[in-house]
């Protein structure tokens, strides 16, 4: 079998997930961006907490891995790097068997892919119940509808609503959530069916944008 060229392939550079920067806290940044004040009861608090919780778990996992790699063997003694909060990825490439003698295969940790199969969180559904979602279609959460949300939504649905408070393209959403596009499309279909989001579709295929838009793009690119 040919190795899929995704992030799971050995020898691929690390993903460079911007959220992995130890100085940053996406949960907090998101809430700041959204203008949510901590301690005030506003809709979306649950989503915000969810994002923060995910982040904290990620931090713990990273720290665990960093300590493990630094010591060279999983001997169960974990030190916490002097409490500096810095935890660099090991220099050794993942998949280097000589460097990681305790592994008998090349895909470990994050390289091995998600623990949960992608479509498990859609209950095995691969087609959205409603709508079609281009990679650059814009998603906006419908705030009025958000007020009485609460039942039947999974954490992933809520995370989408939290991210899509301002217009966001489907591809960006998938990237932020670290979910495959197909999975995000199914989840968006659920939300669209319940009237919780609005979709703004890109220009129809075969129809070029107006000349004024094209000229604006050219000028915009020149001005960059």
């Amino acid at each position, binding site marked *: 079998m040919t190795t899929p060229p995704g992030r799971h392939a050995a020898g691929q550079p690390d993903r460079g997930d911007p959220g992995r920067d130890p100085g940053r806290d996406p949960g907090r940044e998101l809430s700041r961006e959204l203008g949510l004040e901590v301690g005030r009861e506003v809709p979306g608090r649950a989503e915000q907490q969810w994002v923060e919780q995910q982040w904290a778990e990620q931090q713990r996992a990273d720290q665990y891995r960093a300590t493990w790699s630094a010591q060279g063997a999983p001997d169960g003694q974990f030190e916490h790097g002097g409490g500096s909060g810095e935890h660099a990825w090991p220099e050794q490439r993942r998949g280097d068997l000589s460097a990681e003698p305790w592994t008998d295969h090349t895909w470990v940790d994050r390289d091995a892919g998600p623990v949960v199969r992608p479509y498990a969180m859609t209950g095995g559904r691969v087609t959205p119940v409603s709508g079609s979602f281009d990679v650059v279609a814009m998603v906006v959460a419908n705030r009025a509808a958000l007020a009485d949300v609460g039942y039947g939504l999974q954490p992933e649905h809520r995370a989408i609503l939290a991210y899509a408070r301002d217009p966001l393209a489907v591809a960006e959403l998938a990237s932020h959530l670290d979910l495959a596009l197909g999975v995000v499309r199914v989840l968006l279909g659920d939300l669209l069916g319940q009237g919780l989001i609005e979709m703004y579709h890109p220009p129809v295929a075969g129809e070029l944008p107006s000349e004024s838009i*094209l000229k604006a*793009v050219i000028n915009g690119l020149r001005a960059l």
Partner: protein
Amino acid sequence: MDYGRSSRPVPTAIKILVAGGFGAGKTTLVGAVSEIRPLQTEESLTAAGVGTDDLTGVERKSTTTVAMDFGRITIGQDVVLYLFGTPGQDRFWFLWDELALGALGAVVLADTRRLADCFPSIDYFERRGTPFVVAVNCFDDASSYTEAEVREALDLDGHVPLLLCDARDRESSKAVLIGLVEHVLTLSTARSR
């Protein structure tokens, strides 16, 4: 009607594809002009891909994940450009169909050391009628050819622009994108006459 949603206007999203052979500099070009660190998103092979994906030997495997890079350039409040680096392998053609749908146009990156690598991309966009430009990524150790020689080798239609670029350089990559949008503008003007 206002449903109380975000006050930020919803911009028009424009999609531009960056294609070319493996290692031609697609990711580099996207990274050079994107205002965000290039993001990755994953697409799974679905039933639609079964015809094109070579499943010999892995018949029982029903999904394959493929990563694609993308970047964003915000043009004012109203327009956002999204650049998508198309997956390099022929196996993932099926993904292109969806990506190419509604795309403004494409940049085909060519490496003169392995010119043949970009033939499939050119064939694909010609067949689909997607406007495209060919950008020759000038690698340091590649012997230089004249534009006419490259054009000849690629058997390009006369109206398809051929540009020289350095995908690592922001200005150079910007010029390629501008070249593409100008090409689209020319086509659109010609069509409306």
